[in-house]
């Protein structure tokens, strides 16, 4: 079977770590920086990094609308900053987002870097939180896949998925594999 071609939005952030995680999970990663790159892939990961930097670059390169259109057809998975971009609503501070999943997200909600942490979720999934956001509310169509401290940290809605932590910074492929099953 041919490998699934999965894009990693490579404007800013830990796209290289996602590229390696996709390889480990048996997919063919493609770094996405242009509309042509986007047209060539079957699914897209929006990585960790700074959501404000990524938003700025999405607008400079006129990729914001094409990305929304892509998401109307194909699966998108956002981790940390990527989850912020997928949300319907963003706070602390309020900012624009793609609105692909019915979740409200608060940025930097655990605090600063000194509040970053590594924890074990149910099912022994290791979760690396770095200046992470918190999902403050999720609509009825959102399925929560894992929680920490009483709030969802891994969730899906239809073809899309978010994690507020960084599965790409662990050797465990299960989260990426779950996304690949959507493609």
């Amino acid at each position: 079977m041919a490998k699934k071609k999965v894009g990693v939005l490579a404007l800013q952030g830990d796209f290289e770590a996602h590229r390696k995680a996709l390889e480990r999970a048996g997919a063919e990663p493609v770094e996405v920086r242009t509309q042509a790159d986007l047209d060539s892939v079957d699914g897209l990961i929006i990585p960790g990094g700074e959501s404000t930097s990524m938003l700025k670059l999405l607008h400079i390169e006129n990729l914001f609308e094409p990305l929304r259109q892509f998401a109307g057809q194909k699966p998108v998975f956002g981790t940390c900053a990527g989850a912020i971009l997928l949300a319907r609503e963003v706070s602390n501070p309020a900012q624009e987002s793609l609105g692909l999943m019915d979740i409200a997200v608060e940025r930097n909600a655990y605090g600063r870097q000194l509040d970053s942490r590594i924890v074990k979720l149910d099912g022994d999934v290791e979760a690396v939180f770095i200046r992470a956001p918190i999902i403050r509310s999720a609509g009825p169509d959102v399925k929560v896949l894992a929680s920490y401290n009483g709030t969802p940290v891994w969730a899906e809605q239809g073809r899309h998925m978010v994690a507020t932590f960084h599965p790409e910074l662990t050797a465990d492929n299960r989260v990426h594999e779950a996304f690949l099953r959507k493609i």
Partner: protein
Amino acid sequence: MVMNEDFRLKTGLAEMLKGGVIMDVTNVEQAQIAEKAGACAVMALERVPSDIRKEGGVARMAQIRIIREIMDTVSIPVMAKARIGHFTEARVLEALEVDYIDESEVLTPADEEHHIDKKAFKVPFVCGARNLGEALRRIAEGAAMIRTKGEAGSGNIVEAVRHIRTIVKEMKQLTVLGKEELVHEAKKLQSPLELVEWVAEHGKLPVPNFSAGGIATPADAALVMQLGAEAVFVGSGIFKSSDPEARAKAIVKAATYYRDPVKLLEASEELGEAMPGLEISKLAESELMQTRGW
């Protein structure tokens, strides 16, 4: 190479900054301009390096009030500089909860033999290096990110290029050596054998490798990234230029599209005047910042 939980979180934040631009800022207004232009982090300091160079005197950690104001205003990570070896300045910055500390040669060194024991801190550190030995010594002390030193405040990219080329070349050379040769190399590099062996096996540093010191244009940023840097720090280059907002945005674009000449052309148009540059060879040895650190 022990990757404990603390160290994974420290390098983890550095991973998030890759492909981005970290901008020096001296007040809240500059920090807002940087964030709006797409900076992935800001470095809070009292004076940008070109002013430190011009005005002289002792350069110290920035005023706490200013760092705090910047932290309260922007949503991106805030870094701050401590003097080389000044572990109590670093403790103050850690108590303030800055996101990263730069143990920096741009400030006047506080200790001419020792660097800070960075492993003893929970906050991550970035340190400058001119060559692989220096980079590995800093990592051995606990640095979670390395950047080239370049020559800060010069607006001249030549030293940053020299440093990134040196580090990349020295790493490549290690990958072809045998075990017994690595023992000898570790001695020459004045670095722990364990780290030398790690680099020989992987062909890269065990922490993210960024570039700083003299970056003044989008093309400068793209140059050091093509040579192997994973992100860039821009100091005086932005706020000493004639149009900081446009230049900040252009360098952000260049850090993403560093391999795409058409995009670099777009980023290089209508930028106004770059900061004035200095000829490094005309500087006296005592005026160099890059020779600080041991």
